[in-house]
């Protein structure tokens, strides 16, 4: 029976440590100590953009197609096909994009960080850094966090363009129940600049948590090559659940009390 409870128990064990580690890394960024390694932060941001941007955008694009498709057929089944834009606006901006972003960031960036830092840890490179008088937590983890904060807002904004284009393609061109003008009218009516900001906040919180969790599992990896693989797998489990919980809490906080729609009293 106990094996069934291993996963939640493991989280309870490591949750406090991940929190403490995360606060420590974020503290290095906020206190400005990371700016000693600002070049390294820019390099990490560059790696993030060149290594992951295309995959992130492709993933976001596919989710946008799916959003438009399901929305178009749902609106047909309630007899209001011209309102497909309402579904796409909500699905793209408020929910779909943060989740797609969270999934692919935890898969590509989070596990990538674990693999990289874990390999450094078990080949004793992190200890070597310490011997050389460089704070490894600042040089390895805080620079990655700052790099993510520099690069990710821009990746996110380009992702919004792509997810909108994808939904347009699947609603207007693939299913074709509604004209281009009718779709865009409803689509733009049901969103506003604050929605964009809220969505961006959701995405950024997810990205921060993913980078911190990745750094934690990589920094504390042990047990040889096998240990690195296991740590990578564990970070993915933790990140998936964290992404869903942040997504739900963000929805409750930002749109729970007020749906922010241009109708009603």
């Amino acid at each position, binding site marked *: 029976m106990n094996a069934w409870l291993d996963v939640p128990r493991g989280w309870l064990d490591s949750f406090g440590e991940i929190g403490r580690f995360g606060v420590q890394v974020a503290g290095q960024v906020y206190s400005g100590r990371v700016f000693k390694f600002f070049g390294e932060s820019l390099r990490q941001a560059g790696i993030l953009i060149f290594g992951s941007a295309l995959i992130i955008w492709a993933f976001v694009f*596919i989710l946008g197609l799916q959003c438009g*498709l399901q929305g178009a057929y749902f609106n047909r089944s309630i*007899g209001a096909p011209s309102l497909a834009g309402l579904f796409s606006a909500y699905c793209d901006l408020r929910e779909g994009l943060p989740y797609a972003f969270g999934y692919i960031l935890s*898969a590509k960036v989070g596990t990538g960080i674990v693999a990289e830092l874990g390999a450094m840890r078990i080949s004793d490179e992190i200890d070597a850094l310490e011997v050389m008088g460089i704070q490894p937590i600042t040089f390895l983890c805080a620079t990655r966090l700052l790099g993510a904060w520099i690069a990710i807002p821009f990746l996110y904004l380009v992702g919004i363009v792509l997810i909108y284009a994808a939904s347009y393609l699947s609603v207007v061109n693939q299913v074709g129940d509604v004209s281009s003008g009718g779709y865009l009218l409803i689509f733009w009516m049901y969103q506003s600049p604050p929605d964009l900001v809220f969505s961006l906040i959701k995405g950024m919180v997810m990205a921060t948590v993913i980078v911190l969790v990745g750094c934690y599992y990589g920094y504390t990896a042990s047990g040889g090559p*096998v240990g690195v693989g296991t740590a990578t797998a564990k970070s993915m*489990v933790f990140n998936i659940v964290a992404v869903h919980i942040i997504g739900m809490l963000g929805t409750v906080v930002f749109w729970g009390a007020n749906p922010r729609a241009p109708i009603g009293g």
Partner: protein
Amino acid sequence: MMMILTVRTLISAVRSPYPYGEELVWQFLFVLKLSWFPLLISTFALNLGAPGLQAAGILSLFGALDRLGGFFVVIAIRWIGPLVTAVVVAGVAGTAITADLGARKIREELDALQVLGVDPVKNLVVPRFLALMFVTALLDIFAIVMGLSAGIVAELLYHQPLGGFFATLFSNATITDLWSSVLMCTMFGAIVAVVCSYKGMSASGGAAGVGRAVNQAVVIALMAVFFFQFVVSSVILATNPELQAVR
């Protein structure tokens, strides 16, 4: 190369002898033990946030909160159920499979098996492949149940009686929705198993190699699952007119 592995897996799954029975049961229980709790939290949170509260908010402005049931057929059964099951299984079980097989590859256990005359595809990949297909089908039902209970919670948060929710839920749901959801999810399990096994069995490069293999495996698996779901749901929605009838 992944297609070759897929074909080899399928052929050795059906051709006798069948030495993988015990391993199959073990893998099935392993994946189930690992994934049930993340899946429970993930589907509940996602369904409560995205379709639950967002849709309930807009439907309450229209005064049509009973329509949430019909909406949950679309979201929880056709879309999010299989999708989140695949994401969680890829993230939890797929990564574990890649880490396990990758470690065996690095320690040259796979080569040793081959020298002993044991086929790694038949004895290691086939049980994981079949186990993941069974597990995703089972977990998909589980995800749908959790998703619908999240819908009920959203309805209760808006102080609505549940009769309208269930009425539109059952009048909109069709058998096609359910079997296509389960079938789609079984296919996702197969995709995840093949991608993750392949990446694990071709890991190389020492310590960093296994970690990198897990990284690539989960990215490829997620991309493949998302793309495959778009294609399959386009086909199913377009070829089954009873899914689009106005009710």
